[in-house]
């Protein structure tokens, strides 16, 4: 920004060179304008990522290290006590961040890879491929995804690879629908036609012509989809068919310690223990929702109401 001249002159204002702000400058300006909820969300997400990446540094004990005292109360040795077979709950929560969040991120990426590529292909191609994919997605979406996941897990068994694959495929249906819907608006644009006449291949049109123009809704969808995947995986683990012990996971931790809740009358801290992993899940999803809300509002260009 140039210092303002003392006297106003229309000529100097018009004549001033429009300075391009760098990426970082724009980002800082955007962040300043962001509401507190969004900033709060970003800080939380950052913290989770930090804990997940450096889990072994933060955790006082190992992931499956067993101590002689099961259901120990909160103390300075075991910050949140120990679980039913004497594992430190605080350490498991930290490792849980890595496992639960990591698996959810991997699943969401896979879902976007499948759904996004197929959706774009269907939008550009518009032939039997589009028909075939859309109808198959209709059928897949006709079954509630948690139920479908339960059926598939009962057949293939609950391993982490199966879990990721099954949830990714089930969730890619929604990504497919969204990608196809927004891409259809872009495909009819003249510049796409020009690229096609220029002789560009399917891959180029997908990547260079359409993808940049449909990115904002897709990014917002990524956040929301991640929440759904995260909650689905947590629910499955809670039901005992998701991530299997001894891998630390927030969903199964709630289930394992659930009985403690009835002792809240005598020791409030014990009653709170099963809520901690659940609260960790809830906090992350709230944070993501806040950020996505702000992002959608910013990119929609809608400022009234």
């Amino acid at each position, binding site marked *: 920004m140039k210092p303002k001249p003392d006297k106003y002159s229309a000529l100097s204002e018009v004549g001033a060179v429009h300075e391009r702000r760098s990426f970082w400058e724009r980002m800082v300006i955007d962040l300043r304008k962001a509401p507190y*909820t969004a900033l709060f969300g970003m800080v939380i997400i950052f913290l989770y990522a930090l804990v997940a990446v450096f889990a072994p540094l933060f955790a006082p004990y190992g992931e499956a290290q067993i101590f002689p005292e099961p259901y120990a109360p909160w103390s300075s040795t075991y910050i949140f006590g120990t679980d039913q077979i004497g594992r430190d709950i605080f350490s498991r929560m930290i490792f849980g961040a890595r496992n639960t969040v990591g698996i959810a991120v991997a699943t969401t990426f896979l879902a976007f890879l499948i759904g996004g590529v197929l959706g774009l292909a269907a939008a550009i191609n518009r032939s039997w491929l589009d028909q075939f994919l859309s109808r198959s997605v*209709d*059928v897949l979406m*006709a*079954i*509630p*995804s*948690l*139920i*479908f996941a*339960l*059926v*598939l*897990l*009962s*057949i*293939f068994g609950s391993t982490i690879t199966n879990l990721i694959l099954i949830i990714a495929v089930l969730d890619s249906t929604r990504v497919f629908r969204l990608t196809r819907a927004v891409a259809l608006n872009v495909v009819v644009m003249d510049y796409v036609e020009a690229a096609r006449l220029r002789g560009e291949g399917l891959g180029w049109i997908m990547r260079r012509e359409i993808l940049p123009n449909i990115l904002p809704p897709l990014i917002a969808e990524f956040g929301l989809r991640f*929440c759904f995947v995260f*909650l689905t995986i*947590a*629910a499955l683990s*809670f*039901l*005992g*068919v998701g991530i299997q012990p001894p891998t630390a996971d927030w*969903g199964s931790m*709630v289930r394992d310690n*659930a009985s403690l*809740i*009835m*002792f*809240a*009358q005598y020791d*409030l801290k014990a*009653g*709170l223990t*099963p*809520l901690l992993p*659940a*609260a960790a*899940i*809830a906090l992350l*999803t*709230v944070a*993501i*929702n*806040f950020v996505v*809300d702000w992002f959608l509002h910013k990119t929609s260009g809608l400022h009234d*109401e």
Partner: protein
Amino acid sequence: MGIATLFVVSIIIFSSIELLPGDFGQAVLGQAATEETVAAFRRELGLDQPAIIRYGQWAGAVIQGDLGTSFSGRNASGVDRSRDVVDLVIPRLRNTLFLASMAALVAVPLSLVLGISTALYRNSFYDRSVNMATLTTISFPEFFVAYILILFLSSLYSVFPSLANVDVDTSFGERIYRAALPALTLTLVIVAHMMRMTRAAIINLLASPYIQMARLSGASPMEVILKHALPNAWAPIATVIAFNLAYLVVGVVVVEVVFVYPGIGQLMVDAVASRDIPVVQGCALIFAMTYILLNLLADIIGIVTNPRLLHPK
């Protein structure tokens, strides 16, 4: 369309039994089973016939209300103590429907009122706080909501029982009392979503020119929303309600497990854990059917409330 989808869904659910790795009979009956028992079991399941014929028999039986026999209760000795899936499913289905309808009866009117009133006083403090609260509830996993409710309403202050174990003899009032916490959990979870969508549907319409016209002609905000916006918003709202009722059917699974409520969701989870495929199939089929029917209902409501779609050109 709905029937076609149901048909394909039934094929998917049926083929799940095909995909099981290894010898099916051996897996169910255990290592100690003799050759003859396994062979007899396979014959009983019809595993010695091609898949298409078996699908035909299975689908035919399902239409007549026969979902097959549960695997549990069979063992190597060949004594058959297993029960029909239908006998297992029906009483539990009744419980689940009771719970779901209890939640729906509270949730649907509540979310409509909240949605319309927040659209009316949009951007006010009321609107913002309701929005914030609902956004938070949406993000909570169901079991978190459930355990918070248990902590406050059952463990710290024993208002309601935390275990919702009802059986056939439980009286109606007692049933409502026992199922109060699970129903409350479900209500909280779906009200948030329904209310937000109702609000979004109405606010979306407020941007259209005819609303501007109504406003310019001097209609009050209340009138604009109730008389002008709402009739056009019924279709999306109906879709959302149906979608959420369908979601209710799914959310019921987790909530039933938390509260040990003897419903169909818990039956299914138990069956998945013990790989009791006929029970899983039966439950999945019922869930899928409810889901499809509700979505179909939403489409029909959407068409009925929109005169333009009722009279095709």
